[in-house]
């Protein structure tokens, strides 16, 4: 077994899903390969760290509220949840408020071109991470998908423009996209604030659903970091 095959079996080994023979060959290779040994150690480290996450604490009064509400909702056939409605209202503001931008280093021509892989005819989320050094209001956002790529919910729209605010720090923009042909192309995201603007180009590569990109590279397809500090 070589490094490539060992890497292929790494997750199955961690999950104890290999048959005896394959596990034996895997272990033999790992014992004599420092790189694979290191990858295995990091895999274990992640699993251990996930298991060691602290327990989220449930509000002591939640149970009483929740059971009472469940019974009431059944009786009244409707849900009254003021706090939730307020959160929904707040989330609308947040949805508008987030976006892309940064305080310094703006200007036309500044392009960032990370790459993302999407599968043909399958809705996929492409996530862009942007960093802003300050809260910004009245920011204009513009998205322009390439031919053959559509934003789910905005099919046949070649340009989507909206205004909103930006929060200080990292902002996550989730784009549900679907590739209609294999060509791919550049998705343009532009942010304007006052006289400043910045353009980003995300290279979208399309692959067949039955030929997924190797797992190790999938990071690019789900999270495309565009950090500007």
């Amino acid at each position: 077994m070589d490094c490539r095959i060992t890497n292929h079996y790494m997750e199955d080994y961690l999950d104890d899903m290999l048959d005896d023979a394959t596990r034996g060959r895997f272990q033999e290779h790992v014992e004599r390969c420092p790189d694979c040994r290191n990858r295995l150690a990091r895999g274990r480290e992640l699993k251990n760290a996930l298991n060691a996450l602290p327990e989220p604490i449930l509000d002591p009064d939640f149970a009483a509220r929740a059971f009472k509400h469940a019974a009431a909702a059944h009786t009244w056939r409707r849900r009254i949840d003021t706090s939730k409605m307020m959160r929904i209202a707040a989330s609308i503001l947040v949805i508008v408020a987030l976006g892309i931008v940064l305080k310094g280093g703006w200007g036309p021509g500044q392009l960032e071109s990370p790459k993302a892989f999407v599968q043909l005819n399958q809705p996929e989320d492409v996530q862009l991470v942007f960093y802003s050094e300050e809260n910004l209001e009245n920011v204009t956002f513009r998205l322009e998908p390439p031919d053959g790529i559509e934003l789910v919910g905005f099919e046949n729209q070649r340009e989507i423009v909206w205004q909103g605010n930006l929060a200080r720090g990292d902002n996550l923009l989730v784009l549900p996209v679907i590739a209609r042909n294999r060509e791919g192309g550049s998705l343009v995201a532009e942010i304007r604030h006052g006289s400043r603007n910045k353009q980003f180009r995300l290279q979208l590569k399309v692959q067949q659903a039955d030929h997924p990109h190797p797992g190790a590279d999938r990071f690019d397809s789900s999270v495309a970091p565009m950090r500007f500090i």
Partner: protein
Amino acid sequence: MKDFNQDQVETHFEKLLRPQLTWLYRISYRFTGNKADAEDLVQDLLVKLYPRRDELDSVANLRPWLVRVLYRLFLDNERRQKRSPLRLLKRRPKDDAEDPLEQFPASDPDPEQYTGGRILSERIEQALNMLCRDHRAIITLHDMEGYRLSELETLLEVPLGTLKSRLHRGRATLRKILEKDGTF
């Protein structure tokens, strides 16, 4: 159950599910990444189950059954959100007013008391919240709650190959994020 009066029905329902609440909240919290959405998800679950009290009574092993309903509810909620205009822009937790870490007991402000373990946990929480819902869900149920993939195949009615693919890709993404910020 139909012979119970309303108070008895409520009491019986609560008696069945109250012992599961902390566990349901933990999974919901991992699914959604924040306290408010986790509470809403558990609340939605209780509302959904209340009319199905008779069915609950007949379930021999409650937890797997609850996981299945919770997971479907989580997906339904996510799909509803997806239908809203440009499901864009969700601030990453470290800048969010609803920072999930605010739920954990505060540590000593002295930096020396701010242990490596806690920092690691915070970063992993943040990285988890950057995963897509499918990856977050499978990592929660498999890596954190200990369900085997073969169990989840039945519970979630998702093919084993798809589950494995999501799990491997989710972990790979997590590692990339954590390597990028220097955690790993």
